[in-house]
């Protein structure tokens, strides 16, 4: 469970608070939406809820953010990664560019944890299967469409088996057809028991996926 208790955040060297005091609870298997105009703090909320802010990027956090009962500020980035995955809006920036195949790209996270090869492959195939992109396994990650790249990036997060996902405008750069693919994948992920925090401008997407929507 992710819990924000009056969490407010200020970026390093910034004068103002990018995220005003915000409270929310994200339970396993639920999808909570976040909407608001540009510069309202959606991306900042995604960074705070996942613990990347302030753990990885610095800045000042007020209030409390708990990830499965532990304060995010007490966890290291790799410990956060195994509890909460974060998907950003730019698929191109989320593939490492170090791998020849999609399977190797998705396996990057489990490999970082030093898991046995058999477990890495099991997690990789499970993540690809859950998102319905197993047929891409042998493809070159650099030659995928935007929607495929986004799904591969999501599979890379799921291979770490996080209990939660924070998706920051995951369909903002995709056309309607690709957005629908990503939306269907998010539904499957939530049905598998993963709690999802979804920021988006797309009202139709929020209406389709989210039981609850928070306005910023």
């Amino acid at each position, binding site marked *: 469970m992710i819990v924000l208790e009056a969490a407010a955040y200020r970026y390093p060297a910034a004068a103002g608070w990018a995220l005003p005091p915000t409270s929310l609870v994200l339970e396993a298997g639920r999808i909570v939406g976040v909407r608001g105009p540009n510069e309202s703090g959606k991306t900042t909320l995604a960074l705070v809820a*996942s613990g*990347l802010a302030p753990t*990885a*990027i610095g800045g000042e956090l007020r209030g409390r953010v708990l990830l499965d009962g532990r304060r995010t500020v007490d966890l*290291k*980035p*790799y410990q*956060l*990664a*195994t509890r909460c*995955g*974060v998907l*950003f809006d*730019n698929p*191109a*920036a*989320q593939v*490492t*560019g*170090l*791998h*020849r195949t999609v399977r*190797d790209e998705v*396996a*990057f*996270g*489990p*490999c*970082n*944890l*030093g*898991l*046995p*090869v058999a477990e*890495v*492959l099991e997690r990789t195939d499970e993540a690809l299967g859950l998102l319905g992109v197993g047929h891409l396994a042998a493809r070159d990650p650099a030659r995928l469409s935007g929607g495929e790249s986004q799904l591969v*990036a999501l599979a*890379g*997060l799921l291979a*770490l088996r996080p209990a939660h996902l924070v998706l920051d405008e995951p369909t903002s750069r995709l056309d309607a057809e690709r957005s629908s693919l990503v939306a269907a994948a998010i539904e499957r992920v939530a049905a598998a028991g993963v709690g999802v925090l979804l920021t988006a401008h797309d009202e139709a997407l929020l209406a389709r996926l989210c039981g609850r929507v928070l306005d910023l």
Partner: protein
Amino acid sequence: MPAAVVVTVTALAALRAGRLRRLAVAVLALVPVAVSSLVVNALLPAGGGGAAAAGAALLRLLGATLPATLLFATTAAPDLLADLEARGLGRRAVFVLGAALAAVPRTQALALDVVDAQRARGLDTEGSWPRRARGVLPLVAPLVIGSLAEVEDRALALEVRAFGAPGRRTVLQRPPDSGWQRAARWALAGLLLAGLAARAAVALVAR
């Protein structure tokens, strides 16, 4: 002489690997340097080395650049990185090397995006030279800013993939390394040491 050997061996290896054309392109790229070396050494009195010195300089240049060209023409960057990692190179060093190798195509792709975006806004990138010169700043500024922003995005993307986890990474597959390849590497290393020793010996005798 050693440079000539390196160039010959590289050319033969390229021939066997079917990459002679790629090597030829690299040689063509060196033509301006070769011409200027020839002009300085053979034609200008201040250069003083003559055509033989110009030829030797060009051979050294080819010897330094062609093996690297052949390496990247025959070896995919992911394979090279996987092999280095399997041999014990740390994850951060592997990533830095991989990022450096991928920087050129990535920047090219970003530059094309910027050019398309600025053209859509009416920037003339195909007119006269003065017009093109005026268009440089609107192209370069977004490219630099975009590259910096992408570095930040990539750093965060690595964090969320547990890149900073302690301990050794799992290596999924080790690139094939046959017995004769290992033997060839040891032989080349031996040849290098022998060459260095011979050179040192010649220098000592000359004194």
